[in-house]
């Protein structure tokens, strides 16, 4: 691209200011330069942290960290606390997200049904959930709904996360469904399909490419917001981190490790979805 634009312009004298600016720009845009700048920034951040920790006399104990991921003792291989917490977090997020997808799809279809009651129910649900902080919703689910229906903290957390994200998911689904042209509905209807068949065979398969990018954001958001259930002491990654810190006082090492674990999970998700996007890319 950039090569085309440069050749299109009238050639300027080598060594002129314009030429130098253009070369500088090209250099800045190149991949090695980007990596270099990135490393530089990371170095500054890490150096800042380390220097700060040094100044406050922090005693680094990184050598103790691998034990919390896994250890090999006389009894053989054992997963560490952080790994167990990670599995719990993934379980929690997966279950909640599947449930959120189901509830979100129902809410989106109700909203699109054209029925006055359906639309009203969907909008009330949406506004109620969307305009409440997640933490407050969690308290409602645990202390009120949980108490009424005798839910344990794990189920209450799953339901809370599912309901909270269902509201956001339903909006993504609605937008993706609305992105399909009316002509597709008409063509599907004109060969005798019912509304359900239209969605199942024609509309939803085409919406996938519109919902994948925002849905990735939503899954990543879900994994991260699952940390909030640590306030009701559900044993997931963040709770484990808190417990470990109160046992060991290694706040820096443990929080850095936990943050890195979250990042690895969400980055893997992003890569996976990019792959899916390519698969579902359909030219229209």
């Amino acid at each position: 691209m950039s090569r085309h634009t440069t050749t299109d312009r009238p050639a300027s004298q080598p060594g002129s200011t314009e030429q130098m600016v253009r070369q500088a720009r090209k250099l800045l845009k190149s991949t090695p330069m980007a990596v270099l700048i990135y490393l530089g920034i990371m170095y500054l951040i890490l150096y800042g942290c380390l220097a700060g920790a040094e100044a406050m006399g922090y005693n680094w104990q990184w050598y103790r960290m691998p034990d919390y991921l896994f250890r090999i003792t006389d009894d053989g291989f054992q997963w560490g606390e952080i790994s167990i917490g990670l599995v719990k977090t993934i379980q929690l997020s997966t279950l909640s997200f599947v449930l959120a997808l189901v509830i979100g799809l129902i809410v989106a279809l109700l909203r699109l049904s054209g029925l006055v009651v359906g639309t009203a129910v969907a909008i009330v649900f949406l506004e109620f959930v969307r305009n409440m902080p997640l933490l407050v919703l969690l308290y409602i689910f645990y202390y009120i709904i949980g108490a009424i229906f005798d839910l344990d903290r794990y189920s209450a957390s799953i339901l809370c996360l599912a309901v909270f994200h269902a509201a956001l998911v339903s909006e993504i689904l609605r937008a993706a469904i609305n992105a399909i042209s009316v002509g597709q509905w008409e063509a599907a209807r004109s060969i005798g399909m019912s509304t359900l068949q239209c969605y199942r065979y024609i509309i939803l398969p085409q919406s996938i490419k519109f919902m994948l990018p925002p849905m990735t954001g939503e899954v990543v958001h879900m994994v991260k917001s699952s940390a909030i259930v640590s306030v009701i002491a559900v044993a997931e990654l963040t709770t484990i981190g808190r417990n470990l810190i109160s046992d060991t006082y290694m706040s820096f090492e443990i929080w850095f490790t936990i943050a890195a674990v979250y990042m690895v999970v969400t980055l893997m998700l992003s890569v996976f979805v990019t792959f899916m996007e390519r698969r579902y890319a359909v030219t229209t």
Partner: protein
Amino acid sequence: MPEDTPIIEIRNLDKFFGAFQALTDVSLTVHIGEKVVICGPSGSGKSTLIRCVNRLEEHSGGHLIVDGIELNDHTRNIRAVRMEVGMVFQQFNLFPHLTVLENLTVGPIRVRKIPKAEAISRARKYLDRVHIPEQADKYPAQLSGGQQQRVAIARSLCMEPRIMLFDEPTSALDPEMINEVLDVMTELAESGMTMICVTHEMGFANKVADKMVFMEDGKIVEIAPPSIFFTKPKNPRCQAFLDQILEH
């Protein structure tokens, strides 16, 4: 030759879009095997009329009986009618996520519930009839406009409808592709299919139509066989319209 049994009966049809009246007291009978071509200036209600026939638009008043089934609010009736009435759109509206073959089989398999193998052999038969058997495994976006429209015609035919509706099937096509679509439509007409076409292709109309219908401002102004319609229409506005489009 058209038989005398009516297959579509439109009686005193009215259609409102909010306060705007798109159709006013329209009555038209189409017999089995008859080819009807509807023309008229844009906004005259031609498309609205044929979209009412398979209930893509809901009529506001009057009666509409298709293949002995009265079109009303019963979903079962609407779907029964739609299976018997094929529709070809100006913008093709092929399903972009399905291959040509899947576009043709999705209706028969999911709606008619016929076995997959039978649906595929039927699809290949109709692809042959629209002269593009070699494109079966491509996606719609890989085809030219004319080919896409022929696939759309084949898709409708795969449902083995008794009536075909064409809503300006050549208006979105490049000029060099119009004939390949009109040829397919002419062959279909010769095979005895009942057809209602909204089109401005007067050469095609003159060749295949049993009945020409001229609409203006939501009303049917003139109904006549092509021999009379093109030479001495009774209505002066119809004459003026014909003069305009036949001028070049």
